[in-house]
């Protein structure tokens, strides 16, 4: 019997997911042993034509990481979907949009202006901006269309499984790979991994919560044994699926929320929001506002990994209008 065929692809992502696969260490050999890798542009030299030449459904499993940010990402998503039996959204970008998805706090035009003109580190005296089409002696060069709104993989093609994490932990990948190899897969549409919360795995001691102000990480040295949120440090662990072993809170850094929401949740940000807001130590609007003044850029915190995947998906489009001061906070965080 021939080995199952495996494809790996990165769309709009940092490459961390690829490293995470390599982070399997010696187990990568088992993967190589178990699968016939037919496409992995990061590691091996394949051409898109090679994939196009395949039969539909010829690839058994495609691990697709990265968000969909331009025509090329979308093209490959559609192509690989057609050629693959099982499509896995691999990592937080493909799952929820993650870091690339934070671009949805802005419009394309605003970003280009910032990147090519306004950013303090930009040195572009001639004001050169990349053009989508450029005539060269060799012919017309075309860049893929850069979308105004970043999408998740599932918003472009049907996805069978999700493997969250930024990047997914080696153990999570192992679980997924084992499941695929053994054929013991959960029902399609599932997130692979246990439905538990970061707090479940976090060894810090939890008490009845009351937050009277927030601190930024540089402002305090947290007590090593107590829940970070109780100490006023932002932590999304209360509303975030675990599988990571609560790595961040264990070393004194609040959970960022990379594994995304728990089962059944529609909007990751809303859950972090409601959890945190519920325990603010204030009853009047004035007291509440005073506490919230110590938490800059709440939307950035809440939607760090699931902006395109949230109910609203992006901010209202500005059509190039100037941002409100309050919105600039979010923009500067990018």
């Amino acid at each position, binding site marked *: 019997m021939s080995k199952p065929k495996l494809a790996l692809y990165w769309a709009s992502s940092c490459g961390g997911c690829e490293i995470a696969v390599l982070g399997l260490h010696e187990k990568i050999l088992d993967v190589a042993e178990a699968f016939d890798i037919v496409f992995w542009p990061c590691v091996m030299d394949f051409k898109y034509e090679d994939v196009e030449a395949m039969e539909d459904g010829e690839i058994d499993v495609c691990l697709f990481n990265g968000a969909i940010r331009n025509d090329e990402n979308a093209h490959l998503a559609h192509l690989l979907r057609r050629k693959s039996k099982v499509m896995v959204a691999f990592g937080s970008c493909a799952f929820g949009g993650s870091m690339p998805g934070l671009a949805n706090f802005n419009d394309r035009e605003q970003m280009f202006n910032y990147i090519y003109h306004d950013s303090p580190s930009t040195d572009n005296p001639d004001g050169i901006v990349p053009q989508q089409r450029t005539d060269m002696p060799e012919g017309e060069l075309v860049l893929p*269309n850069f979308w105004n709104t970043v999408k998740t993989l599932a918003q472009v093609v049907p996805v069978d499984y999700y493997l969250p994490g930024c990047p997914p932990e080696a153990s999570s990948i192992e679980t997924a790979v084992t499941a695929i190899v053994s054929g013991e897969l959960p029902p399609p549409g599932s997130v692979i991994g246990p439905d538990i*919360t*970061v707090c479940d795995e976090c060894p810090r001691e939890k008490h009845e*919560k009351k937050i009277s102000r927030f601190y930024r990480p540089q402002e305090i040295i947290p007590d090593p044994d107590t829940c970070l949120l109780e100490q006023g440090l932002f932590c999304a*662990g209360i509303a975030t699926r675990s599988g990571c072993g609560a790595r961040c809170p264990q070393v004194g850094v609040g959970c960022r929320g990379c594994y995304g929401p*728990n089962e059944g949740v529609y909007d990751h940000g809303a859950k972090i929001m409601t959890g945190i807001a519920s325990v603010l130590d204030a009853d009047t609007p004035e007291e509440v506002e005073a506490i919230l003044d110590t938490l800059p850029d709440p939307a950035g915190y809440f939607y760090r990994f699931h902006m395109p995947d949230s109910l609203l998906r992006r901010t209202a489009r500005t059509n190039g209008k100037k941002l409100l001061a309050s919105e600039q906070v979010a923009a500067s965080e990018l």
Partner: protein
Amino acid sequence: MSENEKRVGVYVCHCGHNIAGTVDVEHVAEWAYNLPNVIISRDNKFMCASTGQEQIEEDVKEFNLTHVVVASCSPHMHEKTFRNAVERSGLNPYLFEMANIREHASWVHPDDQDGATSKAKALVSAAVHRVLHHEELTPMQVEIRPEVLIVGGGVAGIQAALEVAEAGHHVYLVEREPSIGGHMAQLDKTFPTLDCSACILTPKMFDAGSHPNITLLTYAEVEQVDGYVGNFTVRVRKKAKMVHEDLCTGCGTCWEKCPKKVIDTVFESGLGYRKAIYRPFPQAVPKYPVIDVETCIYYDTGKCRACEKFCPTDAIDFEMQDEIVNLEVGNIIVATGYDLFDPRRIPQYGYGRHENVFTSMEFERLVNAAGPSDGRVVLRDGETTPQSVAIIHCVGSRDKNYNGHCSAICCMYSLKFAHLVKERTEAEVYNFYIDMRTIAKGYEEFYDRVLEEGAHFIRGKVSEITDATHASEEEGKLVVVAEDTLIGKQRRVPVDMVILAVAMEPRADAEEVAHRFGIGCGDTGFFTERHPKLDPVATVTEGVYIAGACQGPKDIPDAVAQGSAAAARVLSVISQREVALEPVRATIDEEHCSGCRICNTMCPYHAIDFIEADSVSRVNPALCKGCGTCVAACPSQVISGAHFTFDQLIAEIDGIMVDVNIDEPLVAAEMV
């Protein structure tokens, strides 16, 4: 049940013309067939009538319906009616949902038939989408302890206590003051029959004090209430009386010998004196005195102890400490009464500045034969009989600056005062009123009688009471200035004495008390009944009832009626031995609970416990009242609120927006 096995019946009510006059009811019913899983959809003239209810029962059987939606009036009106109909048809009553297309559509959009019809469709769609997620629910059964706590020993509380005690159940009657009796004990005569207040109240007080089934806890306050209907635990603080009741005979030597005289601001309403060791009034129940440690010389200087020296039975104990009593009761009746409005808040009426301005309660004490003037109607100098008396109605009532509400009793007691002044003096009496409200049996007749006795009635709100005089006949008098709205002229009426008919207000600590017992306070500050018409003595907390003026201004017969009513409600619950609790409650999926403890501080009823061993939170279903605050707080969405689940509410939102087309996102016009 799989999705496509669900079969929904929709019933759109005309409510005669009430709904159908504005909403196109037939169209809504017809349109409802477009909604998922709708098998039958009908319109009906009156769904709440027996024919409407029977239609549901028939259809459930004929069409094998699994869920029912009725679009009619407010669920506060008829949710129970239709749940019962659904239950009779063999379905679980919670597999039903109501769409309110009368109060929330036809009645409020009479000029917008299209708008009202679209809204009705949206609300029906919401109900259909929602009901598909409904689950079978069963009320929880809880055992009822027969003991009853009654808070407040005024006439309402006494009445309730006697009713329950007579029925054979034990009552704990808690009273803040040293004696039961309440405001009624301060009064002289009662309107309209003019029978003596003490004569009719004292026997009841005595019965309450001596009944084997009643434990009196006077000079005591409830500090904490835990538990739920049938099983409340109540902590009561009995303030130290400094007198051993088992030794005291109530002989009175102590207060005769006590050298410290203080103004009695409670029973005598500030118009008379008592001693530092005192019994509020001769007929007090219990008959034993207490030492007021605030004014007692011994607690101030460490000397005196006169009462101790003279006490023949050594009943005085200066070292006595407050005592905490824990009670286990099944039901609670709160009858904490009212406060009187402080007229100093209306400085232009001069109370406290002009000595001959009295409050109504001061006047009650004045005309009381046992009061500071032995029942003589005199000015504050204690000897002069007034030649003219003004009675100002609605002082602090029906006035947006103070209390918007009508205090219900002032018209009548003002008439009583007019009569008593006429009876005991030669004085002219002027009543300044806004409207005369003499609404109960015998009241209007009493008004006629006082009119015939020659009291004057001037319709106008008094603008000021001043000693700044205009004319010689005003010299030395108080001038009552008001516009007489019946003749359209300003009147200046010089009088010797003014009585302010002050408002009944919620107790100063009503909000705190309400919180302690899980009762709500309305916008006037009085306790809120469960339903203003159909459930006037129950509250939203099962097992907690209210009676008397703590619920709103009322006179003695109404307070007594409510005391009896609350007792009857309690007795009915006790006789059921157990009670069914609404199944709208939260539960935590412990398998998925992360133990983050966000929910722990959400519950005002302390229904959520953190189970340290399992590192999970758990809801005590008997304590949970189903508000859903913890459900919304849970960041991992593992707390579920029965009948208001996440899925049900999302489905309702999706259903309510069904006609707003958003399914096809527009193609971006500004593509490069």
